[in-house]
């Protein structure tokens, strides 16, 4: 894999071209660390000191720095991007879609209802719901009322894993219009506290910013 870089009119921004697809649809602007939780790659890039904003295009990653020298930043950023693409990890956790592409309003409403129902399921250790903890990576609705939930746990091998999975299934099943629920457990990307909502972080007394 060879990553090219390209200067932009703004000297504080640099474009990286990994030679692979970055976004399948549209673009994604990430203006601060809080918004990075939806993208494992963005989380890793924000962990490099000096990165203040990101923009993902179809095949480009534009990185904006707040300070420092590109000569010093570039090797670290190239390393992060290379490692991420080589690992085959997701760029964004939930597909970012324009409203018109998401499907029907009814489908959106069911997704929202499933997510709301999943808030009944708490991580017993952290004592907060799995949606706001960022443990639910994706909720997708297929024809026939099939809900596909992709989720993780805070730690691999947790004794609560099967209860969380079954709990998510039961909670989603309680939503009107859901006939079948498939819960897929994944550890790619691994969960980090960065993935929590601001509300969950505040509840647990966790400061914003910084990965592990």
């Amino acid at each position: 894999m060879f990553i090219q870089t390209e200067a932009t009119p703004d000297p504080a921004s640099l474009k990286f071209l990994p030679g692979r697809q970055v976004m399948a649809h549209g673009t994604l602007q990430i203006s601060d660390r809080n918004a990075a939780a939806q993208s494992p790659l963005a989380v890793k890039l924000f962990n490099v000191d000096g990165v203040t904003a990101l923009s993902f295009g179809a095949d480009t990653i534009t990185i904006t720095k707040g300070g420092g020298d590109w000569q010093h930043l570039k090797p670290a950023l190239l390393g992060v991007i290379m490692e991420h693409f080589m690992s085959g990890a997701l760029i964004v956790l939930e597909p970012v879609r324009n409203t018109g592409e998401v499907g029907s309003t009814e489908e959106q409403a069911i997704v929202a209802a499933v997510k709301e129902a999943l808030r009944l399921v708490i991580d017993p250790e952290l004592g907060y719901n799995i949606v706001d903890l960022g443990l639910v990576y994706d909720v997708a609705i297929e024809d026939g009322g099939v809900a596909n939930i992709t989720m993780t746990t805070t730690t691999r091998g947790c004794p609560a894993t099967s209860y969380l999975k079954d709990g998510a299934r039961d909670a989603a099943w309680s939503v009107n219009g859901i006939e079948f629920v498939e819960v897929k457990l994944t550890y790619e990307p691994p969960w980090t506290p960065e993935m929590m909502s601001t509300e969950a972080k505040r509840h647990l007394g966790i400061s914003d910013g910084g990965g592990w």
Partner: protein
Amino acid sequence: MLGARLSRWTMSYFAAALIALVAAELLMALGYGYPGAPVESAETLVLVHLVALGWLSLLMCGALFQFVPVLVARPLYSDSLPLPTLACLVAGLATLLLGFLQMDGIVSIPFAFFPMAAALLAIGFGLVLWNLGRTLWVARPLPLPARFVAVGLCSIAATVTFGIIFTLVLGGVTDNPHLVDVVASGVPLHAIAGLGGWLTFTAMGVTYRLLAMFMLAPELGGPRSRTGFYCGTAALAVAIVGGVTAICLAASVTLVLFAAGLLGLCALLLYGADILHLYRARKRRMIELNSRMAAFAIASLAASVILIVVLAGLGILAQHVAAVVFLVAFGWLSGLALAKLYKIAAFLTWLECYGPVLGKMATPRVQDLTVERRAIGWFLLYFVAVWAATAALLLEMPVVFQICAGLMLIASLGIIVQLVRIRQLLDVSATLRLPPGVRVPLLLRCSVQHD
């Protein structure tokens, strides 16, 4: 189920262990054993084995049956072995204690208690090794915390081997000169393999994972942690293998122990640096009681190391070694065990009662099963009493030591009451305590409800 399951008999191990702790503290408060009797007396041996085998080893075994699967994200090799294992270990301990009492002339039944104890404990720990060893074996390559446990398991094998040799010689079964030499000079090696390898090294590995989990801190496994692991493993290998070799060759065991001590010191310094990093890098700023009390236990370990260095520097380590062993056993190992027990009991009880209804109805948090402000006083009393008792041993004040042991007993009973309240869900709010289908769990056994 992916990874770990609820270990059915872990609570029974914990209960048996707590009974042994209370019995040991009661005996110390009554002036039984050291310092009222010599270190090598049968009374002290009863006390030491009640603590090391009855309290700490049973607790460690119960905890490992639950948490080794968490460390390696694989199920335990056998869920049916922990009960016969517990039966063998408890019967073996009881027989061993009877053997010591027989040695003291208190028990006059003409029965070969020592060989029987050796057989029962060998079977019990053999089953522990088989079950946990098979679980670890299929999970290779092991993550760092599990490697500590693997070395701990090798150490218990060495400890039990020493113990078997001691019981066979003391029981008059053999008079092989090499084995008699091991009995004469091998007690420090038996203690190092047990307290250092089995209990301390395993506890170090488990803390790497549990502290990271409970405080939301990054899991460690970098060069510093690995170097610490290798130094500790080397220290144990030098002490045990080198020590036995020195005994067989009639060479100096002290020199071997000095070399092992230096390696052990390096391992503990690196471990200390890692633990400091875990506490500092934690995401959860407000940490729970178990993590706060674990810090006191780790501070006791640090104090033990400092004490060893200072006493050795002054040339009086041999004179005060009992005080150091006491601080390691009660400040570090027992303090950590009680702190983590407070969390683990709540966590397992939650899984047993509320895990199966998750997603169907509102459930309490694990923290809702505990009242930390009520428990903290007992923990603080426990640690203050342990530190004061250590000082009393150093200053050779046996009456003060007995008073402190009495305070430790009161504190331990206070903590046990909190654990029983957790098991009975007494502190969960009435609205969430017993939703339809949830019942109060059995005190001594975990069984998944709603199956």
